[in-house]
């Protein structure tokens, strides 16, 4: 492990990679700050840039953008009560009331310290957890992989919130269906191409990610007329002091410690992520508070701000565990990173830390630098960066559209991809209006090819029998968990349906269903 850490350290401290961390954190903070654009869109917008970099630098950049975007989202939550992404919705509960009391500076500082601690604690646990899990998973066979992918796909649906389970599963199946378009790698025959040469290679991952997230999110703001809303001007003079008193530090320290570990554990679960972690950490902290303190929640409680901020950053780090060790994304954002790794020709999973130790370790090590960058550079600069929030939407929206389109075009140089993006965006908007979550579709698409390969291999080895699912104890265990995760919410929904209970979900679940994180 020490060798690996040194390898990672050597790669991560290369000046170019350090530059990538800084750039990633800045770009992520800026994009995450823009209401409507979350970490998924931020990372998706970076993919075309990373294609020109080596794998380690590319993933380091994307990781920086990821936690930068989570951090940036909290800034707009605190300053203008407009969360940049779903995982910072809770931050606004107590962050914005603090800003209204002329304590925006303190709220921003606390958010930065909490994010830093959450991210760093997460990175420390990741340093030990990832290699341990990866060593165990080296013994995995194709049947185990297939079961793991089933678990990854079903877990997303399980965390979708009440009333959304079937919709999330349908979207997962849609993603798997899209993954079957193009040439079948095992037989070489073309599927669902309708004679079009442009579809022989299938639907590009980048195109799908850009169209369903970056482009759709921006178009949705236009559809809802949000581009006409004037953003609140950030008044620099009203930010107040950024210092926390000793009593305040004492008050929030246990909260930050608790929420960091808790957030990491939630982030590790496939399909969970920063959004769920932030809501649960806030709920946990509120439950732990005394009756008197409980009344402060929602009115500017420091603990109410520290808990979700620590948890969402720790969860972002935690979601790298299943990605790096099992090749299964823990969130929508890491699903995009999985796609990027596959595009590099790198197979994420147990072999990653054996075959590409530089990528595996440098990403983990770079997280320490990333969290430092967020704290040291972003904290003093945040009042200035937040001025970008006042760029008029009629200028900003066409620019984001332009970057989304050219990001795809400059990889393929095929204008058919742009027309395809338009078609997919129209479909995605309609699906969003029908409240179908997008993240499960992307996850299904990314895992589709891998799942088909492993199923094909497992079925061929077992001569067409599905007995491979129960012959190995490990496969049986994972498959059973997948089945349990799948069946429990479905049965709950049926049970509620026949008892005529409403499916309406509270605000927390609505935010979770946005699928960001």
């Amino acid at each position, binding site marked *: 492990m020490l060798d690996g850490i040194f390898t990672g350290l050597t790669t991560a401290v290369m000046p170019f990679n350090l530059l990538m961390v800084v750039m990633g954190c800045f770009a992520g903070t800026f994009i995450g700050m823009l209401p409507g654009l979350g970490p998924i869109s931020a990372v998706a917008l970076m993919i075309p840039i990373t294609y020109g970099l080596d794998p380690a630098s590319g993933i380091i950049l994307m990781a920086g953008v990821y936690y930068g975007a989570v951090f940036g989202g909290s800034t707009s939550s605190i300053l203008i009560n407009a969360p940049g992404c779903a995982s910072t919705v809770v931050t606004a509960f107590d962050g914005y009331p603090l800003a209204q009391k002329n304590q925006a500076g303190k709220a921003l500082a606390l958010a930065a310290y909490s994010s830093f601690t959450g991210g760093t604690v997460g990175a420390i646990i990741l340093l030990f957890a990832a290699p341990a899990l990866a060593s165990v998973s080296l013994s995995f066979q194709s049947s185990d992989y297939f079961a793991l992918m089933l678990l990854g796909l079903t877990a997303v649906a399980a965390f979708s919130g009440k009333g959304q389970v*079937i*919709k999330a599963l*349908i979207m997962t*199946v*849609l993603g*798997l*269906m899209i993954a*079957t378009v193009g040439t*079948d790698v*095992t*037989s070489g*025959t*073309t*599927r*669902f191409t309708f004679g079009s040469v442009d579809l022989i290679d299938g639907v590009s991952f980048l195109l799908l990610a850009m169209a369903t997230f970056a482009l759709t999110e921006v*178009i949705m703001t*236009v*559809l*809802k*007329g949000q*581009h006409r809303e004037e953003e609140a001007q950030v008044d620099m003079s009203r930010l107040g002091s950024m210092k926390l008193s000793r009593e305040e530090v004492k008050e929030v320290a246990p909260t930050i410690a608790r929420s960091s570990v808790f957030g990491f554990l939630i982030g590790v679960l496939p399909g969970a992520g920063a959004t769920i972690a932030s809501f649960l950490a806030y709920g946990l902290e509120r439950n732990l508070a005394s009756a008197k303190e409980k009344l402060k929640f929602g009115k500017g409680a420091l603990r109410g701000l520290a808990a979700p901020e620590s948890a969402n950053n720790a969860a972002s780090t935690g979601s790298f565990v299943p990605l790096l060790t099992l090749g299964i994304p823990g969130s929508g954002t890491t699903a995009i990173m999985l796609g990027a790794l596959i595009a590099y020709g790198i197979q994420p999973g147990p072999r990653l830390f054996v075959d590409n130790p530089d990528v595996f370790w440098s990403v983990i090590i770079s997280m320490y630098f990333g969290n430092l960058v967020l704290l040291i550079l972003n904290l003093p600069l945040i009042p200035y960066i937040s001025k970008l929030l006042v760029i*008029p*939407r*009629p*200028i900003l*929206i*066409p*620019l984001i*559209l*332009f970057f989304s*389109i*050219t990001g795809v*075009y*400059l990889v393929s140089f095929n*204008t058919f991809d*742009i*027309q395809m*993006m*338009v078609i997919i*965006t129209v479909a995605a*908007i309609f*699906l969003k*209006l*029908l*409240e*179908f979550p997008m993240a499960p579709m992307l996850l299904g698409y990314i895992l589709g090819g891998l799942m*088909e390969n492993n*199923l*094909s291999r497992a*079925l*061929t080895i*077992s*001569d*067409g029998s599905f007995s491979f699912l129960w012959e190995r104890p490990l496969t049986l265990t994972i498959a059973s968990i997948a089945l349990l995760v799948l069946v429990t919410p*479905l049965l709950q*929904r*049926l049970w509620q349906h026949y008892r005529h209970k*409403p*499916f*309406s979900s509270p605000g927390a679940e609505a935010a979770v269903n946005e699928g960001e994180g």
Partner: protein
Amino acid sequence: MQITKDHIGGLIFLLLSFTYGYYAGQIPLLPGDDFAPFNAQTLPNALTLIGLVLSVGLLVTASRDKADALKLSGYDFSLVAKLLGLVAIFGCALDWLGFFVATVLFLLGGYWLLGERRPKTLLVASLPFAAGIWLILTQLLDIYLAPGRVFSQLFGG
């Protein structure tokens, strides 16, 4: 009976699954693949079945609450259609007018559609931006951007 988003979604995916299943049956198989434990049709057929089951499941358990009905009022579909039309035109213009001109026109069109009317802002936010991006791509990143068929036909090359 109240038609809700769940009903519409379920029906759409039911139709999609049927269509997908139909075309899954059209996938050509190699000789002997019919008897292979796994062939190019296996996963698509399984997905068709799962898609049908889930669509029916959504239809059966669909919410009947009035609050869950699809409401299309209050949305600016006309502006979205214009913007997406602009994106599609940008796609075509890239081939014919080249990257620089197409970008300038796309940005001008985008700003205009979203309500920006000040000529100075329109020009400052499009021309220097497009020129900057073009320079970065061609000079810094050494990416070849074709000049556009119109210019090739007019001036040769």
